Structure formats: structure tokens, C-alpha cells
């Protein structure tokens, strides 16, 4: 189990700046470190390897361009951090793809901050060292 005191580095992929702000605010309130933010897929591909997060918080719907799941799959060979997907709705196809993605969580908005925290800690503890080795 990871040390609850140690800060988890979280990278936020969210196309809406204010929502990203809220997410960051909530993560910080939960004691995590927001190590980076991207509003689009390409940005994420460029920034994640630099930010070296422990976990990626990925909004599935990124507006135009590839969706969050596609971006996560493109990221995996570059930076294999676990991903917590955020979606506004439950969708069987997305659920199935997310499950196939491995050590990932899927949160339906709106979620309680506690649920977010639980999800982040769960995926990080399931793949300890992944973030450091990447």
C-alpha cells in the first residue's frame, strides 16, 4: 500500500479550463500534486512524459480530436501510468474499453471527492513502481 502521506503526482487531461481548475483544486485539497495539465490529446502526449505523473486523470470527452481512451492508448507506450477516466455518463462500450485498458478506474461525473481519492489511490497501489520506472 502506498504511503498515505506521500503525495501522488496527478496529470489532468481536461479540455475545459475551469473544470480542469476545479479538478486540480479538489486534488490539491485531497493532498495530491497536480504535476501537469493538458486540454487536448496532442498536448497530453507531449506533456505527460515530461511531467512524469503517477496517475493520469483523463476526461473521456475531449471535444474535437481523439477521445480520452484513444489518448490513453497512445500514451501507454510513452508513459505507462495508470489512468482514471472521467465521464459524464455510463456507457457499456466505454466501460468495456476502460476495463481492457488494465489498471484503470472509471468515474462517472459528478463524483464525490472521496470517490476520486479512492480511485486514484486504488490504481496507483495496484501498479506500484510503474510511475517511477516509466
Amino acid at each position, binding site marked *: 500500500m502506498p504511503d498515505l502521506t506521500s503525495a501522488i503526482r496527478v496529470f489532468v487531461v481536461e479540455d475545459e479550463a*475551469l473544470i480542469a481548475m476545479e479538478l486540480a*483544486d479538489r486534488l490539491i485539497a485531497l493532498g495530491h500534486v497536480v504535476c501537469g495539465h493538458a486540454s487536448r490529446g496532442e498536448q497530453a502526449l507531449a506533456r505527460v512524459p515530461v511531467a512524469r505523473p503517477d496517475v493520469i486523470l483523463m476526461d473521456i470527452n475531449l*471535444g474535437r480530436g481523439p477521445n480520452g481512451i484513444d489518448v490513453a492508448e497512445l500514451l501507454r507506450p510513452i508513459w505507462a501510468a495508470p489512468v482514471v477516466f472521467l465521464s459524464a455518463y455510463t456507457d457499456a462500450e466505454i466501460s468495456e474499453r476502460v476495463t481492457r485498458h488494465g489498471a484503470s478506474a472509471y468515474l462517472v461525473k459528478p463524483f464525490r471527492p472521496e470517490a476520486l481519492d479512492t480511485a486514484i489511490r486504488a490504481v496507483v497501489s495496484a501498479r506500484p513502481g510503474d510511475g517511477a520506472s516509466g
Partner: protein
Amino acid sequence: VSLVLPPTEDHRADPLGDLLEDAPVILLWLDLDGRIERANAFLAQLTGWSLGELCGVDWFDALLPACDRETARAAFRSGVTASTTRDRVDAIVTRDGREREIEWHDRLRLDSAGTPMGVLSVGVDVTDRVKAEQALRLRQSELERSQEQLAERWETERALFESRQRFEMLVSVSPVGVFQTDAYGHRTFVNPRWCEIAGLTPEQAVGDGWRAAPHSDDRDRVVATWARIVSEGLPFREEYRFIRPDGSVTWVLGQAVPYRGSAGEIVGYIGTTTDITERKRIEDDLADAQTRVLRAEALAHVGSWAWNVTTGEMRWSPEMYRIYGVDPVEHPRPASDLALSHVHPDDLVVATGLRSGLLASGHLDLVELRVVRSDGEVRTVRSEAQLSRRDGVLYGFAQDVTDLRRTERELRRTRDLLLRVVDSSPDWIYAKDLEHRYLLVNEAFSRARGLSPSQMVGHSDTEFWTPEECEGDPVAGTRGFHEDDRAAAADQRVHRDNLVIVVGGAPRVLDTYKAPLQDEHGRPYGVLAYTRDVTHERHAAAELERSLGEKETLLREIHHRVKNNLQIVSSLLYFQSKKVRSAADAEAFSEARTRLLAMTLVHEKLYQSLELSRVEIGDYVRSLVAALSQTFDAGDRVRVDVHADELRLPLDVALPCGMIVCELTTNALKYAFPPPRTGHTTVTVRSVADGVMLTVEDDGVGFPVGFDPLAVVSFGWILVGKLCEQLGGTVVARSDRGAHVRVDFPCPTLRPRYASSSSRTRP
């Protein structure tokens, strides 16, 4: 011998006188009155009267046979007055009544003054000579007669012999059966042919044995007739059948006549039996043929007539009467101009001319004339006629072609109409035979090729299409056409769309349908094709699709943007809420964010839906309920079930509906199950008669006693009331082992998805 001389004469002795007195000839002197004046002894000797008795008596009364007397007297008188003499043989009667034939030579005696004095006659007794001559003549005539009789008899016998011989020969070789009977009708003789026809031996046939020969159906009649004619002595004539022992049936004509003896009595019958089977068969065949001809005439509306121009006799077949509407009872022997009298006035001149031509040439070619029937109906009749060289009779036929001509006219009209329809089509309509030669080409098609239909019909399509022109065809060139032709001819419906063919230098998009052409036996003889130039439509459809796609994308973007904006609002509220101090204010912000969730989700669902204007209510409510459950962290305590019909609701209905669900579910999650209580909440959305029934119910603590949702001042319930009002619906809340809220609202445009899809039909 004494000679009495008249007293006035000179009595001198005379030697000639003596001689005359003694000569064996009669010398007689009569006075003018016929009295004997003087006679010689030979007269006395011959007659037995004495001279004295004779002298002075009337010659005629005394010596002539009574039958000759007056004739002789008259002759004497006329001889005396005419001073004539005569030579003749007359009979005289002797005293004993015998007659003697005397040859007389008379001389009238005149006195010196020339006055007659009397008649001097010399008579020679020729009785013996006359008798001898008579006997001789008798003998001669007897001889002659007997000779004639002899010759006659000989001839008769010879003829009889020949006749019998000929009869027997004839009978033996006769092609007809011959029989002979006695006066009672019993067979006494049958010839071989009779036996052959009857199938009986001569022995079997004699007597009444012949009765076995007639067919059982005819036997009683024949036997009865035979008995009757025999008893009445009449001739016999009957037609009947013989049945031979081998079962074969022969039609015969039996005839018999009585023959009579010398006294006129019937001594028997002689008869013939003729095999008329062939004649009967021909008669039957003829009758059958006649029946068939009449039936055929009636079926074909063909009447026939025969006109013997020489005798003027005209005969019509029954169909002739029907065609002309003439009563056969009124006109059993139709007048020769009866048909002409029925000709339509407008055709009468032509008809009269044709009739003259027929009489002159003996021939009438097929001609059609209008005929006015007796009932006034006008019919079209086709006629022809020909003089028979065999019997000199004109034979003619008349056919009622009114219906035929009417059908032809209608057919032609229908065909013209069809061709007009085909030709007026802007689409290409054409037909090809199995060799791909055009059978029919409409104007649109030929015009597209820059030709006329007649330039294409009969030619193969390969003459009009080059492979370069057909490069859009999956199979290059006309081979593709031909494959389609074969498929269509094999009874497959062929539809090839979006075929690009170069027509008149420009590529055209063509839709072609092909169907088989089949004859009356269902055998294909070609294909019928229908090609539409859809270039414009395709371009327009593509343009429309592109435009629609653009608009759809735009709409999706808008919904997405609205959703994002609402989320941004939610985030803004989040940041705002961080500034408030009191828990009540924080709760107010939280409630506002929850309400925004219902709005956010509806737009999310909209931009994900195919329709972009309607939301699948079950999907929406499930997402909403799941989010609420998450928000209130109720997953462990309260299970929320959603039962929803498949309903697609427009945005203006779905959003208030979702907000009502949001309020009621939030209430249930927040208040119905105070910890540690757990339970169920059920959200139901049902399609009812002309609207929607929405219920939210739980098995929690229920409403407080006396709770009236419309009277409370809670913002949540006010919101429910107002939204319900906006929907034109009603809300009912009650407690029954938990809270039950039911909202009914109309939705006129609502149709279950399955119903709307199944009720739509293709045009």
C-alpha cells in the same frame, strides 16, 4: 224341160234358144218391177221350184235370203234407172232352204225406142267353187296361225330360258342379297350374298329362320312390318340392322314386292337386302360433319349460303339468320336479295356493285360491309363467295366481325396509349430480345443516343455503346449489360444503381431496372428495361447529405458546448461556494450544482443521440439517477431502480421531466432513509394513453403527516409544481409504506419507437 217365154215374144223354135234352155246356167228375165218374166229350166232344177211357180213372182221375195233382199232390190232399181249392168256373186235360196252362190252377169234390155223393158241376167252356180275357195282359205289361215303360234312359243321359251338363266346368274353374283318367299312370307330361297350379309347359312335362313338376323333393337319392328305387309299384299321397304354371330353389325335396306300367278293371286315375294352400312356411316358422318359445321359457324360467327342462280333457290345456314337478325321461320326460303336489303344505306351502292360483279365473274373477294339487322343493330359483316363449277351454285360465307373489329380497335387504342405513355416518359424505356437486339425503344432513349427509335429497333446494343462509354460499368462495355439481361431473363429482378455511363460526351449516373419478358408459356424471350438518369438527383442528394451532415455536426457542437458551459457554470459555483461561510449556503450551492447536473446530462444525451432533437428517456434517467446516487454517496444504503419504457422525448419535455426526477430522487436519497435505514427507490417512466406517467417511490420513512406537496414552501417542491405545470401535467404525492409521487403529463407527439418504425411503409 219346158221354157216359159213371155207371151209377147216370138215363140219360134230356135236352136240357140234350146241350148240356152238346157245349158247349166241360169237365164233370167226380170221386168222393171223385179218380177220374173221368164227363166230357164236350170233355174227350176236348181231351186226346186217349177217354172210355172216361178213365173210372175217377185224375184227378190221368192229367191233371195231375207238379209240380202232389200239391198239387192235397191241395187236393182238404181241399176234399172241408171241403165247400168253389174257382175257379182249373190246367194239364192232353194225351195228346201239351201243357199246357192250364183255369179251374175246382168244386161239391161231396151226396146227399139231405147226405153228399158227389163233386165236379162245370166247366172252361173259357183257354189262349189266358192266353198272350195273358202275351205282353201280357211286351211291356209289355219296353217299360218299355227306357224305363228309355233314361232311365238319357241321365242317365249327361249326368252324364258334366257331370263331364268340370267336371273340365276345375276342372283348368284348379285352384290345385294336376294330372297324369295312363298305367299305366306316364308323364305324359300336366299342367295349367297344374303347369307353373307346376314351371317346365316341358306339352311338357317329358310322358313322363319331369317328372323335371327335382325339386330335385337330392330327385330320386333321388322318382323311385325313383314307380317303386316304379307297379310295386306303390300310391298316391303325397311331400314334396319343385321347382327352377325361374330357380333358385327350391318345396316341393311330390305325391299320386297309380291309376284302374282296367272290369275292375279300373290304366289310369293321376291326381295333384296342391301348392305347400307357404308351409306349409313357416310350419312352419320355427314350428319356429324353438318353438326360440327353448324357449331363451328355459330362459334366463329360464320354463316354460309348457297344460291342457285338458275332456279333462284337460296339457302341460308342458321348462323346467317343470326348474323342478319332474320327470323328463319319467317324466311324459310330467303329471297335472293334478302341479304342486300339488310346492307347499311351508306354501303348499298358498293354492295350492289359487288353483287353484279359476283354474278358476272362468279367470284367475290373478301369484303366488309355494314349490315343493319332486323332489330336495328349495325354489325360489320365480312363476306366472300365463289361459283361452284361442279353444280353451278354460288356458295358464300358471311362472318360477323363486329366484335373482332371492336376488339382490334380497342387493342390498337390501348397499344397507342401504351406507346404514348412509354414515349412521353423522360426515363429510358426499352426492351431487348435474348440476342440483345432492341425490340422497343422509347423517344427519351433514342434521343439520348441522337437517333430515332426506328434506327435502333432490330439492332444489337453493341452497335450503340462502346467500352469507353461504359467504363463506369463494373464489367466493362456491353458485357455488363448482357449479364444483367441474362439475369433478368432468368427471372431475377435486376436493379443496378449508380451506373456511370458516358452519354453524349458527359458522364451520367443511371439507375436501371430490368424484368423478364415472357411468352404465354412463361418462357423468356427478352428483357424489359427502365433506366432513369439520376445524375441530378444523386448530386442533389449528395449535396443535401453533406449539408445535413454539416448541420448535424453544428448541432452536436452546440449541444456539447451547452453541456460544457453548464459544467463550467457548475465549476464556477464550486469556486463560489468555497467563499461561503455557513453550511446552509454551501448546501444551497450544492443543490444548484445537482440541478445543473440534470441539465448537463440532457445535452450530453442529445449530442450523443442520432436524432439530436429527442432523448431516450430511460437512458437519460438511468444516467441521472446513477449520478445522483454517486453525489449523495447513497450506493450502499439505497438501491435505485429505473423502469422506463422506450420513449424518445423532445428536449422541451425531457428537460423538465429530468429535473422533476432529479428533485424527487434527491428528496428520496436525502430524506427517506435516515441512517442506518436502507431501502429501495424506484423511478418509473411509462407511456400511457396520450402521455407519460412518471413515478418516484421509495420504501423509506414517507412524508410527514399532513404533507401537501403543493402547499409546502420548499424550493424543490415549488420547482416540481412549476415544471409539472409547464408540462401541463398533474402531481400527486402520498405516503404508503414510503413516499409515492406520481406525475402525469401529456405528450401528444409521443409515439413508441417500435410503433412509429413499424407503421411506416415504403412509398
